[in-house]
């Protein structure tokens, strides 16, 4: 939906949506807005209407609007969601919507959270590919139906939206915990046969701040908008780190 379209037509019989949006940072309050209802309206459409029509000081973050970039995740009626792909029809309760910033992350302003810690943890989990081949070697040939590659495929589509991180109670209780997204990323690399940092990575993701802190509550798997199962990835890391520890690899 582009500029000028919002609130100018296609409205569902003039119906209004009562929206409460968090304003402020750590301290703040919910402010109520009335937003016209539209057919196929997304939560991001609602927030965009508020900012462009009702209150231009509202801060929020988005980019692609089609579920690819992972920028627009917010807490909608108490649940972390990607707002660009979340239809109001699906989440509004009796014509009411409450939009807040993601949990477990510092709030910069209104609906914008500071994602630095989230992505720093990807780095701490050694979420960077480290290859050993040079340009003089042939490309690796990996069978798509090999067990390792299928594990990679299961977790590789993560868009880094932070929904899993915001949905994780272990993150809330243990701020050092790397979180589902970083551990899922590590698992995809542990299963990448081209990667040469397996041992270092397993050490980086083990222990009280890593995969062993996961309680398997599966909040991440329940909420992931890409239908990834970080819980399964973390379980895989638990197995592999246990094997490495028993073998004395580190």
């Amino acid at each position, binding site marked *: 939906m582009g500029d000028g379209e919002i609130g100018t037509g296609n409205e569902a019989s003039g119906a209004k949506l009562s929206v409460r949006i968090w304003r402020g940072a750590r301290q703040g309050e919910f402010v109520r807005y009335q937003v016209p209802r539209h057919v196929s309206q997304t939560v991001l459409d609602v927030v965009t209407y508020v900012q462009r029509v009702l209150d231009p000081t509202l801060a929020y973050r988005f980019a692609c609007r089609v579920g690819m970039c992972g920028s627009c995740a917010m807490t909608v009626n108490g649940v972390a969601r990607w707002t660009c792909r979340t239809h109001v029809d699906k989440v509004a309760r009796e014509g009411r919507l409450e939009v807040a910033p993601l949990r477990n992350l510092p709030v910069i302003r209104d609906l914008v959270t500071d994602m630095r810690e989230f992505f720093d943890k990807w780095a701490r989990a050694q979420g960077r590919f480290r290859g050993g081949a040079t340009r003089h070697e042939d490309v690796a040939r990996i069978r798509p139906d090999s067990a390792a590659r299928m594990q990679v495929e299961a977790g590789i589509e993560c868009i880094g939206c932070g929904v899993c991180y915001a949905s994780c109670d*272990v993150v809330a*209780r*243990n701020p050092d915990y790397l979180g589902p997204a970083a551990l899922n990323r590590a698992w995809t690399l542990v299963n990448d046969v081209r990667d040469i940092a397996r041992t270092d990575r397993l*050490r980086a993701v*083990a*222990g*009280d701040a*890593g995969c*062993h*802190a996961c309680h398997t509550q599966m909040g991440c798997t329940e909420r992931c908008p890409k239908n990834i199962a970080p819980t399964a990835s973390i379980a895989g890391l*638990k197995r592999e*780190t*246990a094997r*490495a*520890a*028993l073998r004395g690899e*580190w």
Partner: protein
Amino acid sequence: MSVRGETMLWIAQRASAVLLAVCVTVHLVTMTYAIRGGLSAVEIFARTRGSIGWLAFYTLFVVAVTVHVPIGLRSALGEWLGWRGRSRDMVLAAFALALGALGMRAVLGVFA
């Protein structure tokens, strides 16, 4: 504690959980069966005293509890109270020793 140490604790807790699943089941089934016909405590003791089999079983049970409980408490104390580090581990080591001592005292009371 080192990352390897934390990983070994995790392995120990999982392994002790498997043992506990068996021990608790055997214990409950046995207790339920034993009192079904109205056996008194004296009659039960008459069967357990001097039994190497029950001594071995309940010793295993106590060892599993001694390993499992402090490791679980370690996570709970860290997450709920924010208590981490050496002081927590020392207190839990003492707690594990106390659990083991009290448990074995009970086991020997049934055996001897």
